[in-house]
């Protein structure tokens, strides 16, 4: 996709207002060419991408033009209007890639070939992300330029060690899911045609989904009745009838109908699923919350929040209580569902599948949290936490994760047998003054020394003035020399004392060595010929850095040479270790496969 061409019909405009010159826009690897239909009307364009500084574009929208604006390096810009947005986007992506590779590759376009070859199997998105990372981080870009374009590492190898950077970017881009509309179900008003008694309800899949979510009893009934007992159409007709009865506020009529038709009754009675859910919720309410204290702060005690619904006045009749709903209940339920958002990912349309999917997600939810035991336990803990009486509590220490040790003796105790063994170079120094004393002799002399002090008192003077002066002078010199070497203040870095060019070079070499070493060590053990080639390539690259470091060391003036060599030392050591390993490995390899000096070829 990167190489190749894009050819689109477009209009070239000198400004946004300009009506534009129709023509053909052709985008190639390193340039774009615009040829007007009418060669006389305006000159054709042929611009290199590396002269393009950036690009802007209009947002997608019905009444907007599909514009792409390319900003030229020396100021000025090229505006193209496309026929549609998809054309524009293709070109935009192309330009984005082309400009960044063009700037990356520097002035020499030919270097780019190797990159392009590797890129082929990458998606555009992936590519864009990498380019963005490179643009954001100049350090990274430098490394990329040096090694990938220099042919030391392949593009894939370079990015393989930086998966995290790429992944982090992906996770940020997640698709946004559309939630429920906040419009109430009650807003779905029946429309009456006025002439007859017929009332029509309009149910869309969207509304049905919402009904399922908000009215679990309907949802349950749907799963139960459809399609065994009745058709979907019958079901919804019944539902609508029930709704209609509700809307007319005719509790008596509703009760009468419910008595006749048990299916209809489901819709008319109180939703028992709500009730249980509500009970669960109440149980989860913070037990220390004192609701009574807030009583009177709101309008709860007024029926229906003081609003009259549809202007009709409810006759209070406890007999039909269960056939009436309060507006507040409906409102609350609706609010909860909207906030919860859409929890299923099923194409709306087939009502049945929607219903089932919803049922599944509900079950998961239930299983997840609502086991009463846990909730109760939490509740009790909360109570004791919030209503604790300070004096009666034991002091609470911050929680510590105990270290699990299988056998403490193994951890803490010395292993005598091993300890007596040669202890590396720590003992090397002491060997020279090895004493031939036995234990008792040694202790004896120690005691003697102590009693010596006891009898004769402290030696007076403790320190001879000459010695004291010498020591003091020595220490002071030590101090002043460290001050000189490491700057007056401990925070000040040695690097700050160096000329800025040297400093930058050092830092740059350090990062490149790090990068190379990372790749180098990660390719061991060499199992494939590919790794073998890679290691060889890396070794060569590293050996090129070696003399450069030497050069830096010699280029600085004598004052800071010592410091620079101190800084360079660890780099050289790290490189040396890598070389040594490489050589050893090579030898082993050639020894094994004597006739094949190249190892695996």
């Amino acid at each position, binding site marked *: 996709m990167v190489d190749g061409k894009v050819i689109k019909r477009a209009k070239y405009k000198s400004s946004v207002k300009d009506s534009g010159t129709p023509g053909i826009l052709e985008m190639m690897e390193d340039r774009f060419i615009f040829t007007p239909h009418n060669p006389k009307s305006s000159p054709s364009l042929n611009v290199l991408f590396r002269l393009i500084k950036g690009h802007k574009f209009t947002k997608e929208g019905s009444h907007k033009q599909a514009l792409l604006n390319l900003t030229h390096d020396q100021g000025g810009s090229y505006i193209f209007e496309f026929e549609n947005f998809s054309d524009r986007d293709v070109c935009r992506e192309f330009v984005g890639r082309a400009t960044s590779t063009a700037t990356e590759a520097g002035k020499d376009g030919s270097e780019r070939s190797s990159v392009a070859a590797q890129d082929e199997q990458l998606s555009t998105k992936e590519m864009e992300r990498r380019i963005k990372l490179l643009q954001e981080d100049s350090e990274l870009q430098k490394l990329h330029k040096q090694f990938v374009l220099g042919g030391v590492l392949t593009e894939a190898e370079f990015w393989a060690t930086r998966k995290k950077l790429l992944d982090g970017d992906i996770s940020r881009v997640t698709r946004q899911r559309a939630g429920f509309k906040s419009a109430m179900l009650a807003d779905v008003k029946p429309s009456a045609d006025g002439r007859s008694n017929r009332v029509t309800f309009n149910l869309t899949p969207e509304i049905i989904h919402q009904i399922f979510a908000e009215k679990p009893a309907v949802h349950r009934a749907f799963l139960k009745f459809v399609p065994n007992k009745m058709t979907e159409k019958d079901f919804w007709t019944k539902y609508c009838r029930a709704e209609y009865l509700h809307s007319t506020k005719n509790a008596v009529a509703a009760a009468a109908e419910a008595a006749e038709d048990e299916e209809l009754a489901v819709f008319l009675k109180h939703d028992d699923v709500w009730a249980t859910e509500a009970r669960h919720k109440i149980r989860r309410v913070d037990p220390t919350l004192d609701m009574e204290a807030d009583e009177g702060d709101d309008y709860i005690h007024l029926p229906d929040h003081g609003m009259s619904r549809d202007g009709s006045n409810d006759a209070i009749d406890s007999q039909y209580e269960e056939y009436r709903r309060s507006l507040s209940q409906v409102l609350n339920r609706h609010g909860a569902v909207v906030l919860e958002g859409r929890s299923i990912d099923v194409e709306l349309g087939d009502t049945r599948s929607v219903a089932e999917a919803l049922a599944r997600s509900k079950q998961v939810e239930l299983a997840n949290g609502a086991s009463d035991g846990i909730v109760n336990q939490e509740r009790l803990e909360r109570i004791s936490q919030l209503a604790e009486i300070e004096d009666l509590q034991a002091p609470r220490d911050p929680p510590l994760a105990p270290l699990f040790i299988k056998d403490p003796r193994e951890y803490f105790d010395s292993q005598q047998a091993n300890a007596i063994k040669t202890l590396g170079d720590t003992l090397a120094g002491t060997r020279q003054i090895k004493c031939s004393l036995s234990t008792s002799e040694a202790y004896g002399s120690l005691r003697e020394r102590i009693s010596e002090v006891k009898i004769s*008192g402290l030696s007076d*003077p*403790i320190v001879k*003035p000459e010695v004291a*002066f010498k020591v*003091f*002078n020595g220490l*002071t010199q030590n*101090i002043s020399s460290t001050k000189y070497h490491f700057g007056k*203040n401990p925070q000040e870095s040695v690097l700050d004392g160096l000329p800025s060019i040297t400093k930058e070079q050092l830092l740059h070499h350090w990062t490149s060595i790090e990068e190379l070493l990372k790749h180098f060590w990660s390719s061991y053990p060499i199992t494939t010929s590919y790794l073998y080639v890679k290691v060889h390539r890396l070794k060569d690259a590293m050996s090129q850095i070696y003399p450069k470091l030497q050069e830096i060391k010699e280029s600085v003036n004598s004052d800071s040479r010592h410091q620079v060599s101190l800084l360079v030392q660890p780099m050289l050591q790290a490189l040396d270790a890598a070389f040594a390993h490489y050589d050893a490995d090579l030898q082993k390899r050639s020894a094994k496969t004597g006739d094949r000096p190249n190892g695996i070829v």
Partner: protein
Amino acid sequence: MPQVKIIAKNFMDMVASLPALKLDKLYDNAFICEAILRSLPPLAKKYVLQMLYIDVPISAKLLQEWVLADGVSKHNVAVDRLVQLRVFIETVDRKKESTYRLNPKFQINLQKHIVHGGVLPREPMPSTITVRLPSLEDLEAYAAEQWECFLLHLISSAQAERTTNFSSSMMKIFQRGLLSQRDKEAPKLTESGFQFLLMDTNAQLWYIIREYITNSEERGVDTADLISFLLELSFHVTGEAYNMNTLTDIQRNVIKDLADLGLVKLQQGRKESWFIPTKLATNLSISLSDLSSRKQGFVVVETNFRVYAYSSSKLHCEILRLFSRVEYQLPNLIVAAITKESLYNAFENGIMAEQIISFLQQNAHPRVAERIPSVPENVTDQIRLWESDTNRVEMTPAHLFDEFPSRDVFEAACDFAREYGGVLWEDSKKMRLVVKAEILGQMREFLRR
């Protein structure tokens, strides 16, 4: 704003102000060396230690090498102090570079101390003599009682039940500055007198001892001798009895005075008499009030401005009366209320809000002392607010200029004064201008031109 006139300088400032000869003589005494060393700033102590065994002059540059950029000021303070106390003897060589070496006497005394671990000034009473010595608590109570009695006596001789050994002339000296007496009237506390009462015991003691020392010459006692004796006293062990016979006559007289202040307790044995230093004495050379020297507080202040003082002391009652209205007085409890009137009264006497607050905080009852803040914030805030009420009018010395020859000159003068930030008031109609007194000189010069 009333300025505090009592500055409780520490002992060492007084020592430092002595002439060089006397200072050198003081360093003969090992205890003085020790006390001086302890009073030094931290860096100075370190310098002394590191030069302890060096007998050649060390150049200032070498010392400076060790100092980080942040510490230069501390370093300078330390070195100045050392030179001022003649612990460092400074010499400036031909290249104008100063070198330092330790005062030899000082050096030798400290070297000895380090090797032998310090000795006691005199042997305590051998344990073979069976005399009942007061317990440490008794001793402390005794010291507090003596000191209180002395203070009461100081404020109003009439209230004191016991007379002190101090001659009335000595008493007069102490009272000088604290009390003012207009003819025939009963003496009244001055501003500094009030402030004195609110200071903590160590600071009060300081004031008295300082007066005592500065007036020693009049009594025929050498200042340096007195200082060295007082310092020596502070190295005695609290609660041990020491024989009076080891003292010189002058010292014996001094000891009697000190007994009145509660610094020592005198005890008459069958044959010999002894003196027992109290905590007040051993704290003399300490320039800080560490926790051990702090007394238990007794005051509880409530948010309703009520003050409960668990004390039977008359002095405490008197002090509380300075800024609050005493309502009840029970055998061990004084109940008082901080009112606007009582505070105004205090402010008129020159007591400042901060002093009252710090008194309440420092003497907070242990029950409330642990709380932060130990005095309720609304009370402290109110005390400060009431104080600022009294300071509504601010006085600024100023000069009035008028009868300017022309408007131009007047305006130029105004601008000039404004530049110096000295304009207090101007009336452009009548061409009059009031400026701060500080810029009078510049104004004069300007107008002359």
